[in-house]
């Protein structure tokens, strides 16, 4: 891999203004030990997703109403929209399932989808 040769002689006038190049990790992997990548396996009009999209899941977040989440419903990973019913309980739409407890082997929210990434060329 050819590297640009370092300048000898006078120091570059830009050097003292140098900043680190933009990092996608810094932007999208904001809490690494809590984040997991996931791949979408089929198109979904409802959630505006295409087959092959990558989703980044942040398990440290509490979902807000209307946000997309990865939920385990009947022991399968599903994409769902989190809503809060009038009685204050959390629901997973469109499955209309109540958010339960992982340890009680109920349906539960595995993590909040924090970003969606689509590649146009592989």
């Amino acid at each position, binding site marked *: 891999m050819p590297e640009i040769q370092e300048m000898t002689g006078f120091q570059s006038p830009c050097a003292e203004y140098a900043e680190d190049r933009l990092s996608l990790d810094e932007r999208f992997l904001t809490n690494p*030990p809590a984040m*997991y990548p996931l*791949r979408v396996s089929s198109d979904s009009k409802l959630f505006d997703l295409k087959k092959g999209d990558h989703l980044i899941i942040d*398990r440290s977040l509490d979902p807000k109403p209307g946000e997309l989440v990865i939920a385990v419903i009947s022991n*399968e990973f599903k994409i769902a929209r989190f809503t809060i019913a009038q009685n204050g309980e959390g629901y997973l739409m469109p499955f209309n399932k109540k958010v339960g407890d*992982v340890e009680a082997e109920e349906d539960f929210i595995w993590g909040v989808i924090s970003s969606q990434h689509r590649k146009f060329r592989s």
Partner: protein
Amino acid sequence: MTIGLVDCNSFYCSCERVFKPETRGRPIIVLSNNDGCAIAFSREAKAIGFGQMCEPFFETEERIKKHKVVVFSSNYTLYDDMSKRVMTLLKNYTPELEVYSVDEAFLSLDGYDHFDLVEYGKKIRKDILKITGIPVGVGISKTKVLSKIANKLSKKSKGVWVMNTDKEIDEALKNYPVRDIWGIGSASARKLNLLGITTAYEFKMYKNENLIQKMLTKTGREVQEELRGVRCLEMEEVEAKVNIANTRSFGKDTYSKRELQEAIATFATKCAEKLRYQDSVCYGLSVFVHTNAFKEIEQYYGSGSFVFGSGTSDTIKIIKAAWHVLDQIYRPGFGYKKGGVILNHIVSKNENQLNLFNQDPSDNEKLSNVIDLINNRYGPRTIKSAACGINHAWKLRADYITKRYTTNWNEILTV
């Protein structure tokens, strides 16, 4: 003075369950390298009689069928990443973390005494479970030995146990068998039993300290002091590895030298990668191969070592040296079942003293670094020395292995 011990429940099984939620509530066992025997058991598996370390897998087939036990080959890549996640998160709850093993860590909680420690323990447990999916037990007390005991007790009380007053501690110790104390082996426990000591409380109160010192040496005395709430075992810094080893059982008995050479070269390659990863060099290595100790055949155990003129982390040099040792220890006619490479005399690269009279111009450090770079980008062992071979006949069995969900783009979860 407060110290916490957090330990992951049935760690390997719990890691698998994170990505296989359908296994919740079902018994899980995880098999050793090469699928030889069970090494980890979920709570449900223990309840139906599993739990005996290294019970041969084939002897358990009937029970597995009957109770619909879920069986996994060990997926160490996944467990390692999940362990790192847990440990990184735990750093949020303490200024000082000592990672004691893959699934447990001590947390210094000095100065946290004004916190409600039960609530703090509950928060740790709740957060780790939510973020990693792994249930943990939290034990909090005055010393390491006491926090270990508190951790054991946490299993029976929703995952958190705090004992900080003398009354709480003594009550717990009175029901705690001396043989279950951390640092007291079965031999020491028997000696204490001879003195009439059966519970941790009796050990704590035993007055003849000189006798304890004589019978159980300094370690035993320190444990006794720790039971009394006097801290003897301090938090320890985790250092760079002093030895790096890669050893494996082979999938089948291996007779040919060619196959052994491939295996040894692969082990050596992995060791060298780890060595460069921690910016170190090694001055020596040893290699061993041996036959299957569980079979009634003629046994052979061969081992030997090699010393380098100067420190190296060069894969090719390390393979050459390992093969040189293998040449000396290989005896034809034996069916080899296990082998390994161990690098020793490891120092940081900066401390590596070049040998004045024996400067080694053949060290391919740059080449090795480029290989690491490519392998990091395109996947492990995209480029490797041809010495490692292509078809690994000796390769491990792993019939029930799950995906590397967190370290390989081709194996992530899909939904």
